[in-house]
């Protein structure tokens, strides 16, 4: 009896005699610009998510290099024993002092075995180009890279000024070759590396540490003396 009464109370039929409730009003229509904006935003988000998903799917997965398995060597590739190869490598190493020139940082290191005997501030080539408008001749002032050997040494060296020095300074070429001799520019010592390249001193110690030379390696007076004393003819010079 009680249940039946409750059920009746919850029923809203026309038979109840109550007035009919109006149908729910449709939600207010969005203005057109807001609808367009909404679609643009949803579309952009979908494209971005898609692009991210594609990038992830096509992308690389990384692990630290130490975790990668070593390559499988070809057993037929090496016939010599490890000791023989190590001996061959050791034979290539410089026996005494050697010189390493870092042209990018303008540094010269005097080395003996793996020990640094001297680290000096140097000057290497500018890497710049000089063009003689009159003749069209071009020079590139770069310190060579690779391995060279000290081919000769000279105390109180004189420099025979090449053509490019006159072109660079806007001076006419001298008629007499003896006018080209300059006995102050190279400092107290010069170590010849071939093709006109040298390790030498400079009047311009203020620019040590900068790439200002025409390809030679310049050192300050004190460091030059140390290198002069430690590097005999035949010393290897590695330039990079």
């Amino acid at each position, binding site marked *: 009896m009680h249940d039946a009464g409750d059920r009746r109370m919850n029923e809203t039929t026309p038979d109840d005699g109550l007035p009919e409730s109006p149908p729910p009003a449709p939600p207010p229509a969005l203005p057109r610009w807001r609808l367009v904006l909404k679609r643009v935003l949803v579309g952009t988000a979908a494209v971005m998510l898609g692009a*991210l998903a*594609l*990038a*992830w*799917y*096509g*992308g*690389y*997965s*990384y*692990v*630290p*290099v*130490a*975790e*990668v*398995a*070593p*390559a499988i*060597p070809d*057993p037929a*590739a*090496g016939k*010599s024993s*490890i000791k023989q*190869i190590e001996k061959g*490598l050791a034979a*290539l190493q*410089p026996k005494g002092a*050697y010189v*390493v020139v*870092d*042209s*990018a*940082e303008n540094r010269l290191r005097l080395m003996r075995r793996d020990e640094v005997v001297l680290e000096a501030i140097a000057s290497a080539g*500018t*890497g*710049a*180009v*000089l*063009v003689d408008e009159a003749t069209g001749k071009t020079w*590139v002032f770069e310190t060579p*890279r*690779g*391995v060279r050997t000290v081919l000769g040494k000279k105390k109180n060296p004189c420099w025979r000024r090449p053509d490019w020095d006159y072109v660079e*300074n*806007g*001076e006419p070429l001298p008629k007499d070759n003896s006018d080209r001799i*300059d*006995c*102050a520019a190279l400092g107290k010592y010069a170590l010849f590396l071939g093709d006109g390249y040298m390790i030498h001193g400079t*009047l*311009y110690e203020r*620019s040590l540490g*900068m*790439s*200002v030379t025409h390809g030679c390696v310049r050192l300050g007076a004190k460091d030059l003396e140390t290198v002069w004393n430690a590097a005999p003819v035949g010393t*290897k010079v*590695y330039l*990079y």
Partner: protein
Amino acid sequence: MNAFVSRHLRPLLVLPWLMLVSAPAVSAGDAALQRQAYLAAELAAAKSKAFYLVFDPGAAALDLKIEGVRVHRFALERADFGRTRFSGGERRWPAVSYTLTTEIPEPERPRIEVQKQEDVDKALDEAIKKAIARGKKPAGELPETAGEKVAKQSALEDPDAPLQFELEFDPGLVLVVRGEPAAAGFDDYMRRFGHSLVEGWEGLLLRLGGHEPTPRIVAWLSPQDARRLQKALAPELKLLLYAPPAP
């Protein structure tokens, strides 16, 4: 119970012992082979009198060497080995020795301004020439040289500016050099995020084009070292994978 243990479990107890005995023997043999292959490749590279690179995964370092002499060590902030998510199987280095195939572009060179004679201080120039003729160091401040002008111009370039380049090696390996400061700020993280997006799309496009993207090493180092490495590049530069001495 005891009979069950002796019959079924005793062989299992022997198994770890067998693994202990056999595993080092196998890995030592492999390590010796690796070492031999690396040394043979290094000897060939050292005899070529050209620069070559040795990558040491254990030390996360890249050595620039010539004639077996290490001239510079590029300390890597981080180095990761990557391959596309499509690739299956074991992560393994493709080879011990690689040859650079990427063409090295000619660097942009500044041009030296020829000095105009009207700009020269005649009196100072005469004094310098006289001193030089006597083999003496000229007194006073010397005028600025053409080289100093070029160096000052180059010094205006920011040495800390990020630098990134990719080097392709044969057989299939790409070395991605990222000369960037350590990821510290939002900009750095966003840049790295940008790199991975570009990589992903590139990998996908390659795959769609029917090519298998090659494995790559991404090496992070200082912008200065990245510039130094770029300058040291030469055609057909060798890259060797270091193998330590066998234990």
